[in-house]
């Protein structure tokens, strides 16, 4: 298509939107709601995923051994565990490591108190593994297996961190697919109505163009442009809103709940938009294209 023709079709497309303002506004509002909710869900999901992956680095399973467990056995168990797919790292903390870490944390400001233990380690028998998993959902299985192993006295882990986040993530994921899906269909339907109205108003013109020798593409283009423009407007508005909304919310939550700053780690607005921007544009323009292309094809079959 020539540049000249593209310019003409673009002008016609804009003209269509202006002509049916009410329908255009209705279509755009639905797309805005669709994209805004999609963006909101995505931001929540991405952050949950981020928090879970952060948690996977900090939440581990701690394993304590029976007194009769020899260091060689402990080390070979370590090697065995490290071979597993679901295990990221296994840190061995010997009795000495444990004691010096304890001293550092609790007696840092009063080293004289620790001096009373000089020459003896009160943490004898508290050598442990700290196991970090690749995937927190596999934690329960690993714990069960560890508890059944010989030479293991105690296994401690955080159940809440593992189960709760995953369940919530799943719920939000399904909810977002459902809501976005429904709104996608409603938006396509409304765009299709807009296009039908534009077509009805311009039916005579389209027919005239056809016997004047216009190609199908030329006749269809203004309507598809109309759909794409509505999709674009309906995408840009919620994205701008989401950008500021997200930024402000993160600042606010960090201020209000500064105590939880260890757990509540948020992605930066840039990180969220790296995915959200292209996916939303694709979604919005997808609505515009599907809504217009198939509608006008149906009408122009004659």
């Amino acid at each position: 298509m020539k540049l000249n023709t593209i310019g003409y079709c673009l002008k016609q497309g804009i003209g269509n939107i202006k002509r049916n303002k009410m329908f255009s506004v209705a279509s755009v509002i639905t797309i805005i709601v669709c994209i805004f909710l999609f963006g909101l869900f995505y931001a929540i999901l991405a952050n949950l995923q981020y928090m879970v992956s952060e948690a996977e680095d900090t939440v581990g399973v701690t394993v304590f051994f029976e007194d009769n467990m020899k260091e060689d056995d402990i080390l070979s168990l370590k090697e065995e565990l490290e071979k597993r797919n679901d295990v990221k790292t296994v840190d061995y903390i010997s009795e000495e490591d444990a004691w010096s870490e304890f001293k550092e944390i609790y007696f840092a400001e009063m080293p004289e108190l620790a001096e009373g233990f000089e020459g003896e380690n009160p943490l004898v028998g508290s050598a442990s593994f700290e196991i970090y998993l690749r995937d927190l959902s596999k934690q329960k299985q690993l714990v069960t297996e560890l508890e059944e192993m010989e030479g293991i006295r105690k296994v401690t882990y955080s159940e809440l961190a593992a189960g709760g986040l995953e369940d919530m993530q799943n719920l939000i994921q399904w909810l977002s697919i459902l809501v976005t899906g429904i709104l996608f269909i409603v938006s396509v339907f409304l765009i299709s109505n807009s296009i039908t109205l534009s077509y009805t108003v311009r039916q005579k013109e389209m027919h005239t163009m056809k016997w004047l020798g216009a190609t199908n593409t030329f006749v269809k283009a203004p309507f598809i442009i109309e759909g794409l423009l509505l999709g674009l407007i309906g995408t840009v508005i919620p994205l701008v809103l989401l950008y500021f909304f997200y930024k402000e919310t993160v600042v606010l939550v960090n201020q209000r709940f500064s105590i939880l700053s260890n757990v509540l780690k948020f992605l930066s607005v840039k990180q969220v938009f790296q995915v959200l921007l292209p996916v939303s544009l694709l979604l919005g323009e997808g609505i515009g294209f599907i809504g217009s292309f198939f509608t006008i094809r149906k009408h122009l079959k004659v």
Partner: protein
Amino acid sequence: MIHLENVSKSYEEGIHAIRNMSIHIEKGEFVFLIGHSGSGKSTLFKLLLKEIEPTSGEIYVDGQNIKKISKRKIPQYRRKIGAIFQDFRLLDDYNVYDNVALAQRVIGIRTKEIRNSVPVALARLGLSERQRSYPNQLSGGEQQRVAIARAMVNNPEILLADEPTGNIDKENAKGIMQLLERINREIGTTILVVTHDRDLVEKMGKRVIIMKDGEIISDRKKEEPISET
């Protein structure tokens, strides 16, 4: 230029609009097609514009069997043909200039060229003063002249006119016919005019084909007296 070979067209409802019709029209010829409503004239136009397909027979335009034109190539084919109608078919919310310019826009002509050629086309038909007027501000005769300007602006090889004077008073009708005659004479466009106005046809002294119930009942060459069997 236009050659029909045993063309028939019947519709699903069992109506035979055209029966076994054969016509040959030379390049640059001016032909009248006379018949009452329902004689198959409109069907013939639709066939020539390739809006419908014949039930049987072949149609050749400019040496090309139009049955063989693919759907994609129909727009290119239609550009060879200009058409005007009894109801003018002008777009009411386009002014005179834009109505004529549309014919050039749809075939991808640059705006710059359109700005040159449309005023020339309008001037040729005496419509220079009317460029900014809208169809409802014009008389029937003027509207038909705009339609002719639109049909002719791309210099088609054929001009089809379907009852071009049907909605115009006698005086203006004569003017329209003279205009078509002038286009035929000066540019050499092949012209096929469908009409039921015998008086007007008589004065023109052109080839006249008479149709009745989808069949040709008379094909009188130039200057011969009309005879109806």
